[in-house]
């Protein structure tokens, strides 16, 4: 405890000044004493004691009954003193927890870090922002030797720290799959069994897994109950929802996932996201997915990275800069 003694002579002079003049500046100084005392862990009892001593110094003839009343006051304040002490202890504990969480968040960033692929003929943009310190959204790029890229976008239901821990498990499970095992449907089926066996019943994961083949300009994908992404057709300037059927990971051990494939044409875009994007709300109003697409379109002349960052900034502003949910948006644009 770094408690320092309250300065009795200073207190006495101030008290004297106030009793004689009722001067505002003495009151202001009293407020400063109170703030400093809290900072230095000076107990309530000590302040009252200092007050009693100062009074006795100023009025050596202080009536005995007033002295008794001060002892009485001291007794009455004891519980408040204890409560204050408890509050200070809690505040310290809270600071410790906060710093531990930020260490965990940094560690999560390191564990889950991923490198955006640099693919000739395509432009890729990624933004992923957690609502709280730890991100329950997850995205990952796996660079295969044959030039194809595995792309994962996932959201753990059940927020905060447990969700974040769960994501690390998923990442390592995926990395342990043999490299020839890269079909989206197979990967989701294997992961589903991992999650079903290892995760709490109220927790589950939605995941969109795509295998992107830049050389053939195709993308094959499966979805485990994940928020559908969108495909932008440059030819007629329209968006199409990327529907894929499949149940979330971790609910039934027998789940099977259908695999779909499509070709990416010049100027087209593949848009992958989490529900933090489509569940944005402005006050009580939900933001419809048409609106999300309008915003994407309005920035579509930019590079993919500038595009996703501008879309994020747009919705951050709409929600008064307070995200309700983690926000992840990936856009793959094929060069014209």
């Amino acid at each position: 405890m770094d408690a320092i003694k309250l300065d009795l002579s200073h207190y006495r002079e101030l008290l004297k000044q106030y009793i004689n003049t009722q001067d505002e500046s003495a009151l202001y100084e009293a407020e400063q004493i109170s703030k400093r005392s809290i900072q230095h862990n000076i107990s309530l009892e000590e302040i009252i004691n200092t007050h009693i001593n100062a009074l006795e110094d100023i009025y050596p003839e202080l009536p005995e009954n007033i002295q008794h009343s001060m002892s009485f006051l001291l007794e009455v304040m004891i519980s408040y003193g204890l409560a204050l002490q408890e509050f200070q202890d809690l505040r310290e504990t809270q600071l410790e927890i906060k710093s531990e969480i930020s260490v965990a968040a940094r560690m999560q960033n390191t564990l889950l870090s991923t490198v955006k692929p640099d693919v000739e003929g395509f432009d890729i943009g990624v933004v992923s922002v957690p609502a709280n310190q730890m991100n329950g959204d997850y995205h990952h790029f796996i660079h295969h030797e044959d030039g194809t890229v595995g792309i994962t976008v996932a959201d753990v239901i059940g927020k905060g720290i447990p969700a974040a821990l769960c994501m690390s498990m998923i990442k390592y499970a995926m990395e342990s799959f043999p490299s020839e095992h890269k079909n989206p449907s197979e990967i989701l089926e294997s992961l589903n069994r991992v999650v079903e066996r290892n995760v709490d019943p109220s927790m589950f994961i939605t995941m969109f897994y795509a295998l992107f083949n830049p050389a053939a300009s195709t993308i094959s994908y499966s979805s485990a109950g994940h928020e559908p992404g969108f495909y932008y057709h440059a030819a007629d300037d329209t968006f199409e929802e990327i529907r894929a059927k499949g149940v979330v990971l971790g609910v039934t051990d027998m789940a099977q996932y259908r695999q779909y494939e499509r070709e990416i044409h010049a100027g087209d875009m593949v848009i992958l996201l989490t529900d933090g994007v489509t569940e944005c709300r402005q006050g009580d109003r939900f933001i419809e997915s048409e609106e999300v697409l309008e915003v994407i379109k309005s920035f579509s002349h930019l590079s993919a990275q500038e595009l996703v960052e501008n879309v994020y900034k747009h919705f951050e502003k709409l929600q008064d800069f307070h995200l309700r949910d983690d926000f992840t948006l990936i856009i793959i644009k094929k060069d014209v």
Partner: protein
Amino acid sequence: MNLTVDVQENEGKSVVLLAGEIDAYTAPKLKETLLSLTEKEGNKVEVNLEQVNYMDSTGLGVFVSGLKSTKENNSELKLVQLQDRVYRLFEITGLIDVIDVDKTVQGGY
């Protein structure tokens, strides 16, 4: 936002009437009530979501726990009268194929 949870015993089944929003703040209360009902051996539980205008993924987690509990306790869980937006969540997540969800949607918001 708030959620009111009202349970009525009706002709051998427990009917849970919900009104409000199901999110991270209100889900624990719903989970406690729902699991206390599905944990009764052989109980039939019907959850009416007509007055639920918002549900996030935490809410889905509650119903998934409920589903798992019915399998352990030989009880039944059915969700009825879902609004469009809530129904869509069950549809996207594929949970519609594993949880008994009434397909007649209420529409409107």
